[in-house]
């Protein structure tokens, strides 16, 4: 067996390839992005693609699975929010070929707008979830997830947090399987979720949950490592590694399948130790489930924080383990912060200089340009989730019409395609008058320069049709659509001021490729 050093995300891609996956779709987002990049580079027989957003990616993967393929969908944790609608009903229909969804979570919020715990999605959507604790496990678990998906006719979630996705370790390479497509068989009672069918499917999936709970009790994905029985530690994901680091002598129940949870295994483990302590990142997911089973938990979120990522030190403190002391005196100097910033010569910069001088409310969105919220620009005043700027800007105008005249929405090209078009339709439909600035740097810069539908290039580097952003804006019904080059346009401020004051919706497309691309 060949072994190599791989990043966790490359290991996920390797597992996908080894599983004989046929189709993979996703939308970029840290820390998930490298999975599809690695697949496209290293597994040319897998049809990999960037989709315009996560909902579409999941629907494409689901369609492939129904057509009998093994299919993968990749996204960051908040991407699952976008894909939640199809996820919850694909749970009802089940799959045909295996369907695996990677949720790349970001405890610690290293590059995200929140740190939601996506284990909750597994319970909520009634979909099994596997949680590897290292890159090599990620490779193996993805293969098992495909098998589980086909064996039980369920989509399967695999959660990889930043500390696995962006961690490198030694990963084995096993044989790559090739698989025949299964046949698509028409089965409206299974695949057409009108209420009369959905009610029946709900019963079926509750039965599947019971079956899968039994699987959880017998699979090697969940295992007990017996040691000192004074305390039994229940843990999952990368937290398992921190436990092994600081308490190698402890009895540990390592959960690789966190939904459904293995009730009997937990009961037996609890019976073999004096007390349970649950070590998990973010929410008390496992802890609350164990308590709901009527099994006492001595410690959980009373000693383990529910905000931020865990570290070996936090776990050591919770387990009352000795920790090394600092021995270098604190530096008396105040160190200057080093936040990321817009690059020198960034084409986003002139717009924010102009917006700052105009002193407008800037209803912002997510991308490199969000850095303009920081000094020296301080020229962005809201930012929530992808695509929100356009609808929020309109909502402000609805509440207070003069806000259309002292505010603009600012959104990147990739974000506009992701989820900025529908709210623009709303502005036109409901007779808004706001101005939307689209920063078209012809790439998804923030996540490392991925292609998207308006760049005219696919994930694998092939030329394709480029979505015409000004034209699609016109098609929504906006009459005033301007395209400017931020380095050539002499009166950016004047243009913005006029458009903000005009009582008609307008679009300013700021067109200049990213410097780094």
């Amino acid at each position, binding site marked *: 067996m060949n072994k190599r*050093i791989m990043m966790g995300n490359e290991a996920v891609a390797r597992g996908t390839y080894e599983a004989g996956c046929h189709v993979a779709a996703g939308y970029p987002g*840290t*820390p998930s992005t490298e999975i599809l990049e690695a697949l496209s580079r290293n597994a040319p027989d897998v049809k990999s693609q960037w989709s315009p957003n996560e909902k579409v990616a999941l629907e494409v993967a689901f369609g492939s699975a129904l057509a009998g393929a093994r299919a993968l969908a990749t996204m960051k944790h908040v991407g699952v929010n976008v894909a939640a609608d199809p996820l919850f009903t694909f749970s009802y229909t089940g799959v045909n070929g295996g369907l695996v969804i990677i949720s790349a979570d970001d405890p610690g919020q*290293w*590059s995200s707008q929140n740190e939601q715990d996506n284990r909750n999605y597994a319970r909520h959507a009634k979909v099994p979830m596997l949680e590897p604790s*290292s890159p090599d496990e990620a490779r193996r678990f993805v293969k098992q997830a495909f098998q589980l998906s086909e064996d039980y006719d369920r989509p399967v979630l695999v959660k990889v947090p*930043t*500390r*696995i996705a*962006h*961690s*490198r*370790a*030694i990963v084995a390479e096993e044989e790559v399987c090739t698989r025949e497509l299964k046949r698509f068989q028409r089965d409206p009672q299974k695949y057409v979720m009108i209420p009369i069918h959905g009610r029946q499917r709900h019963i079926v999936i509750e039965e599947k949950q019971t079956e899968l709970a039994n699987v959880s009790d017998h699979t090697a994905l969940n295992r007990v490592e017996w040691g000192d029985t004074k305390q039994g530690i229940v843990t999952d994901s*990368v937290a398992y*590694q*921190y436990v*092994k*680091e*600081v308490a*190698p002598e402890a009895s540990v129940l390592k959960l690789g399948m966190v939904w459904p949870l293995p009730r009997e295994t937990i009961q037996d483990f609890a019976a073999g130790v004096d007390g349970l302590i649950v070590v998990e990142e973010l929410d008390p997911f496992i802890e609350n489930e164990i308590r709901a089973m009527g099994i006492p938990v001595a410690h959980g979120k009373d000693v383990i924080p529910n905000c931020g990522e865990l*570290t*070996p*030190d936090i776990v*050591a403190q919770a387990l009352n383990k000795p*920790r*090394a*002391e*600092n*021995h*270098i*005196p604190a*530096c*008396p*100097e*105040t*160190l*200057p*912060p*080093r*936040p*990321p*910033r*817009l*690059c020198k010569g960034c084409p986003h910069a002139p717009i924010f200089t102009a917006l700052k001088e105009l002193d407008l409310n800037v209803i912002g969105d997510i991308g*490199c340009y969000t*850095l303009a919220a920081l*000094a*020296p620009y301080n020229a962005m005043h809201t930012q929530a989730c992808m695509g929100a700027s356009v609808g929020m800007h309109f909502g402000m105008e609805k509440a207070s019409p003069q806000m259309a005249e002292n505010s603009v929405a600012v959104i990147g090209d990739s974000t506009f395609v992701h989820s900025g078009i529908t709210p623009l339709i709303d502005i036109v439909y409901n007779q808004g008058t706001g101005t939307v600035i689209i920063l078209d740097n012809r790439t998804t810069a923030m996540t*490392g320069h991925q292609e998207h539908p308006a760049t005219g290039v696919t994930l694998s580097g092939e030329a394709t049709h480029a979505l015409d952003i000004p034209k699609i804006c016109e098609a929504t019904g906006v009459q005033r659509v301007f395209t400017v080059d931020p380095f050539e346009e002499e009166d950016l401020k004047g243009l913005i001021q006029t458009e903000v004051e005009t009582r008609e919706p307008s679009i300013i497309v700021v067109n200049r490729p990213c410097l*780094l691309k």
Partner: protein
Amino acid sequence: MTNIIMAGVGGQGVLLACRVLMEAAFYSNYDVKESEIHGMAQRGGSVEAHVRFGSDVASPLIPNAAADFIVSFELCEAVRKLDYLGKHGVLFVNNEKVIPSSVQAGLAEYPEALDTWLDNNVPNVHLLDTLQARKDIGSKRCLNILMLGALSNRLDIPEENWLSAIRELVKPKYVDTNIDAFNYGRSCTA
């Protein structure tokens, strides 16, 4: 187990240095793990990575005060990481300031004489003057491998494994310059 914190600023090549270090450790039959934060590495933010190798590595993160080595490509970033340095730990630091945007914008100051403070307060410190070195080698872009060269004398990794790792991971046309840089770094701490 050997624990190494690598620190610097986006664009300095910290993550490539990590990969070369890991590869060299891997060729030397160690288990090896690394964790890095590179969300905004290209945008001039701080970059931090943890590299650990030994017979069996569990956590990808190094505990507080447990680093055997800190290799910092920048002065202020070195000071930020000192909590990680273990009792007998050694700090290798490039004696160079990269001015953060907060200082450029006049919102913060870059302290004077951090090098003197490090020299006086860190028992085992190597302050490396790499600017001249990089001029001599004739490339500005080999700081990362030069820093690895300085570190390499203290690690139980044979020289040929370092060289193989550089050949494996550095773009072919830069291999020779980087091997010069590696040797230069090595000579600084020999």
